[in-house]
């Protein structure tokens, strides 16, 4: 059916204009953007012929979000893909009185952010829908417990200034008691403060856990060093950081998330309204294990975990397992 839609669209002549904007250049967000475009290309939308993309980045400054959305409006885009919370808020502010759909991606909590009223029932959500990148925090904590039942105190380095990270840390604190864990927090408001925050947890925690916190991810070496100094495992909710030294990395592939956002775009191009499409929550987090890092702290992975892992890192290289 999607192919039929693509063919019929292709017959119309003028390419559909799609604006894709992101808050900052970042490997995960770049992959997200690529995923959206690849999903459309795979469905038969040829760039330049059927669709025309306008790519924009706020370069890390939320003040650029509104001008970018206004520029999209002036360019006459038929649909906006907004990657990250501030970009989505700005796009909705500019387009809310139009019928131009806004598809968000890489937004952790679209309801709390005020983007949509309800993530399951989209009927009141107007022009907005999209994909949430809310990670499975409870699943990650359970994984730590599976790694070693002796783990009780989990140290989290985070930046309370990042919407996604603040939310995930709160979720972790809520989920921890049920798993027999307690969360010890250390705040780093800039990347420069990550080493001190991580060091402050050495000796006070049995494991480190870092979520999708851009501030902490950019200084990930400091958390790795602190975990190894304390000889405790470090679980990182970002698979792309595995080679930097966490023992376990879980999470969603942002490229796949982009494909999911692209799929929503395809549904809209095929005639569905955003208020008929519920918010998508990505499932099936991948588990990646770093055997080199585990060896450095004398940790042996349980066989059950190795069986479930998507990727392994050892001998200085990443290996993808075929879990046929």
């Amino acid at each position, binding site marked *: 059916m999607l192919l039929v839609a693509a063919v019929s669209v292709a017959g119309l002549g003028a390419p559909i204009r799609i604006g894709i904007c992101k808050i900052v250049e970042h490997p995960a967000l770049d992959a997200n953007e690529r995923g959206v475009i690849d999903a459309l290309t795979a469905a038969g939308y040829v760039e330049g012929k059927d669709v025309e993309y306008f790519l924009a980045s706020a370069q890390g400054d939320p003040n650029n979000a509104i001008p970018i959305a206004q520029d999209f409006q002036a360019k006459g885009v038929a649909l906006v893909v907004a990657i990250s919370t501030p970009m989505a808020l700005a796009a909705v502010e500019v387009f809310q009185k139009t019928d131009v759909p806004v598809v968000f991606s890489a937004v952790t909590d679209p309801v*709390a952010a005020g983007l949509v009223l309800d993530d399951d029932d989209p009927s009141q959500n107007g022009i907005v829908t999209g994909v949430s990148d809310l990670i499975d925090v409870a699943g990650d904590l359970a994984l730590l417990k599976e790694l070693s039942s002796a783990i009780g105190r989990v140290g989290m380095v985070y930046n309370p200034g990042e919407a996604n990270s603040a939310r995930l840390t709160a979720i972790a604190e809520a989920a921890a008691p049920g798993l027999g864990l307690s969360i010890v927090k250390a705040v780093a408001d800039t990347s420069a403060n990550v080493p001190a925050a991580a060091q402050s947890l050495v000796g006070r925690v049995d494991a480190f856990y870092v979520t999708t916190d851009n501030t902490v991810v950019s200084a990930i070496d400091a958390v790795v060093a602190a975990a190894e100094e304390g000889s405790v495992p470090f679980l990182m909710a970002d698979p792309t950081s595995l080679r930097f030294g966490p023992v376990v990395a879980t999470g969603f592939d942002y490229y796949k998330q982009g494909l999911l956002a692209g799929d929503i775009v395809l549904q809209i191009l095929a005639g569905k309204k955003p208020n008929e499409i519920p918010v998508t929550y990505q499932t099936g987090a991948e588990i990646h294990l770093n055997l080199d890092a585990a060896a450095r702290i004398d940790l042996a992975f349980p066989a059950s975990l190795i069986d479930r892992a998507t990727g392994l890192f050892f001998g200085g290289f990443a290996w993808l397992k075929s879990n046929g």
Partner: protein
Amino acid sequence: MVSILVHAAEQGFAYGVAALGVFITFRVLRFPDLTVDGSFVTGAAIASSLLTSTGIDPFLALAVAFGAGCVAGAVTGLLHTRLGIADLLAGVLSMIMLYSINLRIMGRPSISLLRVTTLSDLVERALSPLGVAAILVVLGGLTLAVKFALDVFFRTEFGLALRATGDNEAMIVAQGVNTKTMKVFGLAFSNGLVALSGALVAQYSGFADVGMGVGTIVTGLAAVIIGGSLIRSRRIGWMTTSVLVGSLIYRVAVMFALRYGYLVGFQASDLKLVTSLLVIVALVVPTLRERLERKVGSC
């Protein structure tokens, strides 16, 4: 094209209020105040929190934001004048403290104003016959009102003493003016305006974000310098006008970078480069013109 210029002008005015605040510290007081990167967010945070939690009148939210900004600026002033902390460091300390305070005020890193009545909503409703220009008219009116109030203030005895504090501190001390009080007042007033601007921008944008203050000092200074290079005058009325002209040019530059950058091969990641290049052009053109005129004149 027209709509893009209207939007750029709206932003020029909204951010122009912050530029006027930066003008007071940098040009009038000659105090390099970095508090503004924090107080801009404080204004946005206070206004957004009040709008979402109490449904306060959007104009009242602006006034409260102004007051909060004044407090922030006064803290920097007191750190400098009473505790003897160097000017630059006093501002940096306030800015850092404000980061935490802003997060406390907001309760989370970004607040959406999509579902509350903001200034933009009021204006669109009240001035619907004006169409796309409605918000521009109100933002322009508010900002010009601030500008003219500043002009009047700087001609009063107190205002003149404030200007003299920056121009010739020894002279004004000899006149029996307490320059410490003057500095605290100037910093409070300046940051009040910056916070007011933050509250305006948040209501205009439909959201407040804890990261929106980063670079307030840079864009504020850009406006002051661009305007100052285009309109060279020592008269206060022209000086404040030049700041707003500078702010408008800066926002037009951002819009042009977004709108036409890709036509000449610039990518999304070149935005800041293009904006800065356009600002450089705005700075250099008047100087070049002047040189050219001199050459022609000498021939």
